[in-house]
């Protein structure tokens, strides 16, 4: 027993040293040493090491976490299968928190993956070895007696805490949301106070919008059902927009029929994805991925067990519980600085040129997406990092993000289903309740892009989030997914 314990201690220490040595001063999320072992006739254990820097947990605010999900492949076959875990809740039976930073393992009820977060208040590097989770073998459609290859995929997420918040800043944003008491002039911020049925009406105390036509329309009167995610309940949001490396990893788990609809070889600005001998790769993997149509983004989110966010959740993700500042950006002020150049471009350590820049907007000289999270540094303030209240990066500028619109009935009909990890045979999201991937009706755009001016980068701007849909790929759109926080998970 003593020898075994000593070996585990040494392994843990070596793992921590390795994690630190590989990537000093970077977020550098690392998942390593994935192993799968039989547990019993119906389950197997999967162990792995995980580390990332700049993690945090402030129990009075929020925490970051990593969403880890798995794909399994039978030796000799090309198809990767969805993996469902066994058990649910915080630290379910049979799971092990490993050695190193104390972490919680949080498995949602649909068991598509798990969140790894700090178990206690703290910040800095999180590094843990020998994390063990339990896999329900039957879920993966593999033959147990064959050799099995397991792939662990992890993405940083940020917890957005439950609570009331306001939509609409009271400023001059296009198509802003407002309280129904508004008649003209500046919108009146509306407070979202629960996930209960929400009445949409031009009446005081109801949710309304200042535009009822064109691309930024709010549509007419109606209701949002209790299952429409309104942002009051806690959810996890991807810390950054999906990168080109992430999207390549996604493509490498698809079948040929699925790839036919999910890969684009077009020469989008600063797009580096390519395929060689059937393997997809990005020469600049840390750069945000453009050229994604809604069908691509929906497929990515379904495959990853995430879902699109709603307009209301977008404003909550930006503003948090703070009182609105008229015409504010997601970092809570009205100051915005463009980027005039990039040092070390494409290396993974890219940094922005210009002391006060915090947003990729307005057709600056480096025309296209940048490294995800480029403005956050070892000492950045919220404004300098371009961070939201919760620490989410890049919500404005960079690339347009897909959001469920309140501007038409298709968007309002959304009921918050998560992706199940499985796509259709031809590579589309198979979640029936999501807007159609072929028409994209119900999906709008939030946050502006590198091509658009600063007004569209404002938190409450809805220039293209009304009754506007565009199902085609283009230079300016990307993907960011969310997941409703499992019940009982607090900051």
């Amino acid at each position: 027993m003593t020898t075994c314990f000593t070996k585990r201690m040494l392994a843990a220490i070596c793992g921590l040293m390795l994690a630190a040595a590989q990537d000093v001063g970077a977020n550098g999320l690392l998942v390593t040493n994935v192993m799968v072992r039989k547990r019993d006739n119906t389950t197997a254990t999967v162990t792995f090491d995980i580390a990332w820097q700049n993690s945090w947990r402030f129990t009075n605010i929020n925490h970051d976490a990593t969403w880890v999900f798995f794909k399994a492949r039978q030796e000799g076959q090309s198809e990767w299968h969805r993996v469902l875990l066994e058990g649910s809740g915080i630290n379910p039976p049979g799971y092990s928190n490993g050695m190193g930073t104390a972490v919680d393992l949080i498995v949602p009820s649909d068991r598509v993956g798990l969140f790894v977060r700090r178990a206690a208040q703290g910040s800095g590097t999180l590094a843990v070895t020998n994390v063990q989770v339990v896999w329900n073998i039957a879920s993966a459609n593999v033959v147990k007696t064959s050799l099995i290859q397991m792939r662990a995929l992890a993405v940083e997420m940020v917890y957005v805490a439950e609570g009331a918040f306001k939509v609409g800043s009271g400023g001059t944003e296009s198509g802003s949301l407002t309280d129904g008491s508004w008649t003209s002039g500046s919108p009146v911020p509306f407070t979202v106070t629960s996930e209960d049925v929400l009445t949409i009406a031009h009446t005081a105390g109801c949710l309304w919008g200042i535009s009822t036509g064109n691309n930024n329309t709010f549509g007419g009167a109606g209701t949002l059902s209790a299952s429409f995610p309104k942002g009051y309940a806690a959810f996890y949001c991807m810390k950054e927009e999906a990168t080109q490396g992430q999207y390549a990893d996604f493509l490498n788990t698809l079948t040929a029929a699925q790839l036919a609809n999910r890969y684009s070889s077009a020469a989008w600005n600063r797009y580096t994805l390519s395929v060689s001998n059937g393997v997809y790769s990005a020469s600049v993997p840390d750069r945000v991925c453009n050229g994604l149509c809604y069908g691509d983004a929906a497929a990515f989110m379904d495959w990853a067990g995430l879902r699109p966010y709603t307009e209301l959740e977008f404003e909550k993700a930006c503003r948090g519980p703070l009182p609105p500042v008229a015409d504010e950006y997601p970092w809570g002020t009205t100051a915005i600085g463009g980027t005039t150049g990039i040092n070390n471009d494409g290396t993974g350590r890219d940094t922005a040129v210009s002391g006060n820049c915090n947003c990729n907007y307005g057709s600056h000289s480096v025309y296209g997406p940048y490294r995800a999270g480029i403005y956050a540094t070892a000492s950045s303030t919220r404004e300098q990092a371009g961070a939201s209240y919760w620490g989410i990066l890049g919500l404005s500028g960079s690339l347009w993000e897909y959001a469920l619109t309140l501007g038409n009935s298709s968007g309002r009909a959304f009921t918050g289903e998560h992706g199940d990890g499985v796509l259709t045979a031809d590579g589309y999201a198979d979640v029936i309740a999501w807007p159609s991937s072929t028409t994209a009706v119900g999906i709008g755009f939030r946050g502006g892009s590198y091509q658009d001016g600063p007004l569209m980068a404002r938190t409450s701007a809805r220039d293209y989030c009304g009754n506007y849909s565009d199902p085609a790929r283009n230079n300016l759109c990307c993907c960011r997914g969310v997941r409703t926080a499992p019940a009982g998970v607090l900051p």
Partner: protein
Amino acid sequence: MQTRLIMMAGLFLAVNLAFGTEGDARFYGGGGDGCDGMSTRARSLDGGPQVSFWSASAQTFVWTDADDSLATLSIAVWDPQSAVTNGGTFRISVPSAWLCRFGTNATVVVGGAAAAKIGSPYYTADGRSLVLPITADFEVGDLVTVTGLRVVDLHLCHSGSQWLELSFTDVDACDEYPLQMRVLWYGGSYDDWGIATSEPLGFYVPSGTIIGVH
């Protein structure tokens, strides 16, 4: 009046010593009230009873702190004009632009030469204000101090500078020293994505005791 001028001069000197003398926007401003030392919120000290209100120093908080202590506060009455009288109150409030509150479990101590003119302090407005009941008329030069205040819910504050507020008989004053809120979000290089793949393993190996039958 002579006493007032001497105290004003002393305060002005103290502010200069604390913050330097040039190149600092906090020193910009006009005259008129004799105690402009930095760019603070607009305040009305002319025309009515004149009261100064200041913290012992400027203070910086980090928004992730669960709570923090506040420096000693001082309230000096320069010209009460029979308005700071028995039955009135001083009300010290957190900045109206922030949603933080005073920690209502903290024990507050009132000191200074005029401490005897203040009754038992109490919190109000969900902890956003501390009320100091006035139990005797204030005279020129009366001074009270308040120590022990704590501030909580810092995470509900925007970044930047704000000032504690003092109100009495409909006249407001603001702290001469700012509260600075630092909202930090760190980051590094590389993206937020990780992937690893196991070696192909035959994990479903029969286990248990092997019994040979002869």
